């Protein structure tokens, strides 16, 4: 028999028609059955999903598994069912949070919601007036100030932890790890005492100070992991070519760790961009737009949300939801921007030469 005449063997495609029908039954039957049961017996639907549907689905999948592979099919089927069930569970949780923010926040969102501030807004003002423009700017400035200080310092710490052979490294690493567990409100209290002691006014800057101890350890730890992943071979290769340490670092190690360092930046941002407690303690919320983070009142989106959500007026709560949606969009925008920036450089290099 020549090669071309041989039937194609694809043992990894096990599902023939009959088996597919069985799988279809196992997928289709348990859910309606559970719903029917819940309806008839007045059982709580959510409870029924776990107490009735999951075991039922496990049995159904197990039966198909046994018929297809014998005993070992049971384990496979159970793993598949449990994986899908709990992934769906988590996905539903996440999506419902996103969904409620989009639906509730969508009511308040309009163009002027992004551009206007809240100076002339009272709880009874209609949603057509006022917005979170000042809070967006405030968030960008406060978080931006923190990032400006925390990212270079955090990466410098990571360099110290990975590149030097100093004996105090372990001490520094331990403190960094301890610091990353610092409750954010404690950081706020710390800066608050400094404000009280030095009589300096609350401003965007003091807010940025309170965020700094939160962002620094996150950046340092993730950046350390990123730098540790760069093979030591590359460093040796650079040094063997006659590179001084700093050139080996900037021209070889840093570029190789770039995407990891970008992750460090993003995780650092994620840690502080939604912080509320330390900012409430250290900033002076204001409804007006301020471009000076070093003097006077300033508001960030989380403070805005906190202040308006506590109100009993419906329009105020709608504004808070709107601000939550804006915050989500802002974070998404920053993350997307960072990814694009870190990618385009390497691809550009490839294409241009």
């Amino acid at each position: 028999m020549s090669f071309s005449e041989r039937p194609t063997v694809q043992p990894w495609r096990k599902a023939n028609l009959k088996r597919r029908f069985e799988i279809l039954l196992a997928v289709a039957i348990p859910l309606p059955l559970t719903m029917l049961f819940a309806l008839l017996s007045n059982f709580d639907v959510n409870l029924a999903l776990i107490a009735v549907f999951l075991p039922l689905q496990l049995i159904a999948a197990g039966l198909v598994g046994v018929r297809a592979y014998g005993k070992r099919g049971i384990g496979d089927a159970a793993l598949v069912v449990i994986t899908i069930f709990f992934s769906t569970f988590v996905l539903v949780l996440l999506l419902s949070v996103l969904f409620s923010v989009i639906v509730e926040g969508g009511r308040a969102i309009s163009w002027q919601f992004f551009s206007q501030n809240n100076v002339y807004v009272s709880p009874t003002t209609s949603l057509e007036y006022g917005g979170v423009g000042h809070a967006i700017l405030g968030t960008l400035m406060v978080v931006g100030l923190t990032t400006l200080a925390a990212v270079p310092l955090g990466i410098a710490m990571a360099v110290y932890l990975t590149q030097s052979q100093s004996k105090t490294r372990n001490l520094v690493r331990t403190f960094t790890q301890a610091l990353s567990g610092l409750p954010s409100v404690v950081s706020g209290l710390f800066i608050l005492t400094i404000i009280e002691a030095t009589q300096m006014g609350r401003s965007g800057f003091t807010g940025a100070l309170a965020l700094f101890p939160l962002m620094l350890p996150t950046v340092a730890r993730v950046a350390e992991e990123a730098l540790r992943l760069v093979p030591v071979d590359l460093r040796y290769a650079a040094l063997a070519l006659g590179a001084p340490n700093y050139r080996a670092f900037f021209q070889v190690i840093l570029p190789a760790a770039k995407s990891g360092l970008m992750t460090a930046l993003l995780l650092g941002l994620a840690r502080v961009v939604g912080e509320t407690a330390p900012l409430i303690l250290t900033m002076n919320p204001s409804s007006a737009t301020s471009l000076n983070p070093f003097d006077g009142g300033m508001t960030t989106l989380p403070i805005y949300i906190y202040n308006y959500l506590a109100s009993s007026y419906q329009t105020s709560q709608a504004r808070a939801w709107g601000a939550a949606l804006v915050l989500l969009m802002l974070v998404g925008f920053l993350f997307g921007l960072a990814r694009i920036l870190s990618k385009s450089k390497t691809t550009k290099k490839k294409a241009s030469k």
Partner: protein
Amino acid sequence: MNSLSTASTLSAEDISVWFGERQVLEKVNLTFPANQVTALIGPSGCGKSTFIRTLNRMHELIPGAGLAGAVYLDGEDIYNESTDAVTVRIKVGMVFQKPNPFPTMTIKDNILSGLRLSGRKIENAEELVETSLRRASIWNEVKDRLNDQAISLSGGQQQRLCIARSLAMDPKVLLMDEPCSALDPGSTRRIEETIQELSETMTIVIVTHNMQQAQRVSDQTAFFLADDNTPGGVVEFGSTEQVFNGPIDQRTNDYVNGHFG
């Protein structure tokens, strides 16, 4: 690169090496005359790789490394107080066991990386890239894809790229630490041919576990051995012909004939 610099003579005198408290080499004396290829052979763990790293001051990068003795490059001790490790490494190039091209750079940038990393000016970049790649006999394979990422090459090609990267620095001595151990026979043969051609312009020291390779490429051979729990050292050193065909020491005879190691 119009005029290639001449090869240098390298000689190690009484080199002893420690890692922390543990001594791994005891008083190694070897001379590598200009334009000669020297093979370092011996079982694993006998200190060959450690020794070769003392020749371009890569040894001191390992935490806890200690050293006694001197290495003379054209009569000057590279461990002299006033000598900078960087200038030594520019003159004494190194090729590692595992190919390690810079993954973030293109093939061309890898070749030029040595000059950039050591802070020197690049003149005639195109010419330097071509000459270096030709000398490492990889030019024909990569000439149409100089701007591709270096990691897109096969293992054998990556290793020859690393050789070319060292050659772009125009070293006087080239150290090779088991350069073919991760490569297929075809790539190995190519690199061996390259070594032969390179020895016209530089001194070469190569660590190898392959007896045939040592016989094919080297002019002289040093046999390293470390007995249990004692520091390694040179058992026998002489012309390759003599070490393989008429070794004086019984242990050398056993090793080169495959009785142990």
